[in-house]
């Protein structure tokens, strides 16, 4: 975990910030341009004066030039809250490379990018309840706190991510919600997404899975032990069972994907074997 957020990683994050010219937020994120035009300092456009417009906004220089009344339009700057839910149940501490590392690096990256954009960032670690959190952090200086939080996070126990998020109280109204999990969880994803929609959250579902989960390689007779519950099931390796697993896996992915599509959430499937930069880009590109 020492190397989780080393200098190299921070450097990469800096590059990513430069590279990511667009906000990951839609409805209004951080200090970046909002599509809503308003009274901020950054000029956006002109338009002709219409009755009822604020006189103060008339650009008299333009009037002098064109003898028409123009109104100056400015980007409205809106501060956005990025809520980052990180699944820290035991199942996330699995795989090669481990989902726990990748997921925390991803969380750190998103946090860093958001902080760089002057967004308000809340990081919540989820187990059977919200285990640890940092809320409403601002500015790059706060990244240290987040790094510390992520660094100290331990993966254990179970979580019901859908229920926990569905019960979370979003104080700041409109915002961005990023959920990083393997989604091996009971409950209804649709219910959760509906709740997030209700809370005007722009949702990113980062579905982290290790290669071992995507296509398991089993031989012989195995007693499969659930890392969270320690419940076990016995299976005997066969081509048939692998085929069935693939079918079930596809169905599982498709279900989440379709739920997201239905409720306008971004779904990003992440294979931990891929480089972290790629994974981060997959998120920011969605923005």
């Amino acid at each position: 975990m020492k190397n989780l957020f080393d200098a190299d990683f921070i450097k990469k994050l800096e590059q990513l910030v430069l590279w990511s010219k667009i906000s990951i937020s839609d409805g209004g994120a951080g200090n970046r341009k909002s599509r809503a035009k308003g009274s901020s300092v950054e000029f956006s456009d002109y338009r002709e004066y219409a009755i009822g417009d604020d006189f103060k906004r008339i650009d008299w220089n333009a009037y002098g030039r064109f003898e028409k009344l123009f109104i100056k339009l400015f980007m409205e700057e809106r501060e956005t809250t990025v809520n980052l839910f990180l699944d820290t149940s035991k199942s996330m501490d699995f795989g090669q490379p481990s989902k726990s590392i990748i997921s925390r690096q991803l969380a750190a990256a998103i946090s860093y990018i958001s902080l760089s954009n002057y967004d308000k960032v809340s990081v919540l670690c989820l187990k059977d309840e919200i285990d640890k959190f940092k809320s409403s952090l601002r500015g790059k200086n706060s990244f240290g706190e987040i790094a510390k939080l992520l660094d100290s996070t331990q993966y254990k126990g179970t979580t019901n991510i859908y229920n926990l998020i569905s019960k979370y109280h979003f104080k700041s109204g409109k915002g961005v919600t990023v959920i990083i999990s393997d989604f091996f969880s009971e409950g209804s994803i649709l219910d959760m997404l509906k709740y997030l929609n209700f809370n005007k959250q722009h949702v990113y579902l980062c579905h982290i899975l290790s290669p071992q989960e995507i296509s398991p390689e089993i031989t012989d007779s195995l007693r499969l032990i659930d890392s969270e519950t320690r419940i076990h099931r016995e299976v005997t390796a066969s081509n048939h069972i692998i085929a069935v697993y693939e079918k079930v896996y596809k169905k599982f992915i498709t279900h989440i994907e379709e739920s997201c599509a239905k409720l306008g959430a971004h779904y990003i499937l992440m294979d931990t074997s891929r480089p972290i930069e790629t994974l981060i880009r997959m998120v920011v590109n969605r923005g």
Partner: protein
Amino acid sequence: MTFYNPWGLFALIGIPIIIVLYLLKQRHQDYEVSSLHLWEQVIKDIEANAPWQKLKKNILMILQIICIALLALALATPFINNLGSQSENVIIVIDTSMSMQAEDMGRSRFDEAKNRARDYISNLSPDTNITLISMGKSTRIEENLSNNKNSVINKLNSINVTNGILDIDPAISLITSIKSQYPDTKVVVFGDREIFIDGVDIEFSRVSNDGDNFAITMLSHTKTQQGITALSNISNFSKSDEKVPLSLYVDGRVFDAKNVDIKKGDTLNVYWTNIPYDANIIEVRIDKDDALAIDNTAWNVVNKTNINKVLLVSSGNIFIEKALALSEKIELYKTEPDESRVFEGYDLYIFDGFMPGNLPDDGSIMVFNPTSNKLFNVLEEVRTPTIEELTSDVFLYVKDFKFSIGRTKILEVPLWGQEIIKLSEGSGGFKGTYNNQRVVAVGFNVFNSDISLTPAFPIFMANTVEWLIPSALKNIESVYSGDSIEFNLNPRTEKAYIKSPSGERFTIYPPHPPRVFDNTDEVGVYTLVQDTHEGELSYQFVVNVPASMESDINKALDTISDHTFSKSENVVKTGLNIQFIFIWIIIIFLLIEWWFYKNGV
């Protein structure tokens, strides 16, 4: 379904052992997964789509358990008993007569019958009481009400086929008596001739296959001017007319050969002439292969007539002399009564009105009008006695012949004697054997009776001499395999034995009386040897097969065709031992298991 050997089911104990071994072996390797979330679904899906998948996981174990179960069943020797009625008691009858030697079944009928009987016994339910009877000239209970199949089969294996006839009467009476005692008894006969018993349902397994056979059904001889002429009867029991090559052996050497044409089912008289007088054993052979070889040879013995020396001690008796002169087998010597003479060296002494003080002990004695002596007492003399009865075979053919006696002595019949002339006044004559010496005593002088004037007298004398000097072989002209022979030994015999054709010796004397000889199964030339202090007396006789009775090996088929009996019904119904089915199933399951193992399912 029942089991012959329920102990075999103990092999089922292997099933829990296999399960335990699997539990010990089937330790699944622990493998941690992040979550069973998907796996639960996979398992559910597999089980839902293919319920037997659960079994498939342990398919090898299940196959092994099935194999063990089948093995246990096979060891228990399962048996379906609905193919035939199962009785608690079964009588198995095996025909051991000569015709069973016919080799028209690929092997001998007897071997085939034994084989079928063995199968039948093996397929009987274990609690069946089996009675095994061999049926030939004599009927023998080989095993009685035994439920030990091995013992019965061993006994069956030890039964041998004989050269004798089939006498079914003793078998029938035996079966009838067993049936009356155990009415549920089932009777199964393995043979080539069916037997029928009123009121008894007999299952018959016929072993015969229309084999061709030729046989010498008779061989005899007569002396002619040109020497000895032998007559042989050759029978063709085959299904076609045949040319049969024959050869004649005299005393073991080829003497003549012939080819004769015999129509099917016919018997031909074949004469062999000019056989020298000094021939001893005549043997005729059929030189042609057929189903039954034993009846292709017959023997006949040309016994030279033994001349017996007879001494008549009489003052003169023309009647006795004339009567004795009729017999070819005696040489008569006459002498006057002489008290001082020692009588010895004769086969028969006839004392007429005279009794020497020292009676001879080397020959038989006949005495007329005797006086008291050391053998028997003579009582008073009576006149014109009334003859009440003439007993004994010395009066054969003349028993009812009337004659009168003028004067006779009454004899006291000794314990060893048997009265032959019963008078109202007492005994007028007796016969008997004392210390191997035959004695006939008649109380009257032939001159004092009219018997000497009647035709009965020479007959009586011939009978008496025949009894007093018997032929060694009594009343048997031809001996067949399985016959019993009673011998009349010479009075001087100290030891007697029979030498069989294969050289085996059977002692028949001592003790007294000589043993009835019944080891006559072997055919060929036998020798009776009598040791006397004067040397050995040997007498040859032959034992032939009862060809006229047994050689028509297909007769059984013809005679039974009148009965409601179909030829195909020669398989006796029994239970079915289905052990082999289980063994096949085990093999199939082992192959399936091998396939599963090889394909790593």
